[in-house]
């Protein structure tokens, strides 16, 4: 089968349109993610407070977050509560599922794309809040245990200690695992999972047996 003929099949049409949509969506998302990060900050701040990870989260003009923790310094040159910076690059990374998910639901075939987009984006927002908390949890674990993170060896422990007791090894490990999954797997895998879960027609075309006359699948 030639490339042109393949691209005319339902499978080829899906793949070509998903890839074609992903490129502009990535650019739009790259430019607009800062605004989205600012809009999502109050929810992330509320959740981090509920988990006792932070007292508040404020943002800078460059969309970075400053997480004010309840940790008290026991040594070091500075005094006062410990503030953890979360860079806009990390936060933007947590939102990477949005362009991929939207690219997938823009590609035919699709079931109720608007409803799918609303539900999917709502889930991705909640997961963003949880993922942001997992990043904060990992940073708190690095500070209270005074050990380098298991994941980002570029994040050394700070040059001060805190009065709070260290976490257990298991909790420290879980903090690293949570951050690892939040940063590397969740944004992208979840968007694909959401698409698979909600798009019955798309699934039928892409996963159906080869004999299936995919063109017979109707969009609801």
């Amino acid at each position: 089968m030639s490339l042109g003929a393949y691209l005319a099949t339902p499978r080829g049409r899906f793949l070509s349109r998903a890839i074609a949509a992903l490129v502009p969506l990535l650019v739009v998302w790259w430019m607009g993610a800062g605004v989205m990060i600012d809009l999502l900050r109050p929810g992330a701040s509320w959740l981090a407070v509920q988990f006792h990870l932070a007292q508040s989260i404020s943002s800078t003009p460059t969309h970075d977050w400053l997480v004010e923790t309840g940790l008290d310094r026991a040594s070091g040159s500075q005094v006062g509560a410990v503030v953890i910076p979360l860079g806009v690059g990390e936060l933007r990374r947590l939102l990477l599922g949005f362009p991929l998910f939207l690219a997938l639901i823009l590609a035919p075939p699709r079931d109720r794309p608007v409803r799918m987009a609303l539900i999917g984006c709502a889930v991705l927002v909640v997961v963003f809040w949880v993922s942001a908390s997992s990043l904060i949890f990992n940073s708190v674990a690095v500070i209270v245990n005074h050990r380098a993170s298991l994941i980002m060896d570029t994040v050394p422990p700070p040059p001060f200690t805190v009065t709070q007791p260290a976490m257990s090894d298991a909790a420290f490990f879980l903090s690293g695992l949570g951050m690892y999954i939040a940063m590397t797997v969740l944004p992208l895998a979840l968007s694909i999972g959401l698409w698979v879960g909600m798009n019955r027609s798309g699934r039928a075309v892409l996963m159906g047996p080869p004999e299936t006359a995919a063109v017979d699948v109707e969009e609801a």
Partner: protein
Amino acid sequence: MLQRFRGLIYIAAFALLTLGAMAVLIVPSVDAGFTQPFTRSLVVVCAGVMNLFGASVVASGVVLSFANAAGAVMVSSGCNGVEVCILFAAALAPFPAPITARITGIVVGVAGIQILNLVRIISLLFLARFAQNLFDFFHLFFWDAFIMLDAVVLFLAWHHWQAKRWPVRAQAEPAI
């Protein structure tokens, strides 16, 4: 009874395999014994491929650089494509297909993902030299999304192949 929940069982198996593999991967001894050497070998392969095509590139540990120091990239643990390979393997391993098909799919798919990852590393080296302002976008976002999409394409291609080859078993795909 089990047949009714086969979709949920598949998702649970996929999630458990992914979580387990990720947990193993961050154990310091696994990182030192597998991830780091693997990442270094990727850098060596990249340098070998580029030098084969006339570029003058040096591999030094996890750093890939032009010999005249005009650009370099450090390949860290998240840039070695291992996470996507884990997801791919975790998606295939519990799939209701013959074991031969699954093993073949995992081997070929992982190779495909790693080949694209080599292209990614090499392209990033050129971006580091010629278009540093675009480097972060391509490094952290563009390529990650495309490698994940590549894994989806490979999964679909594998599914298509195994369904053609073993049509009876293809009827037993997980109903999600």
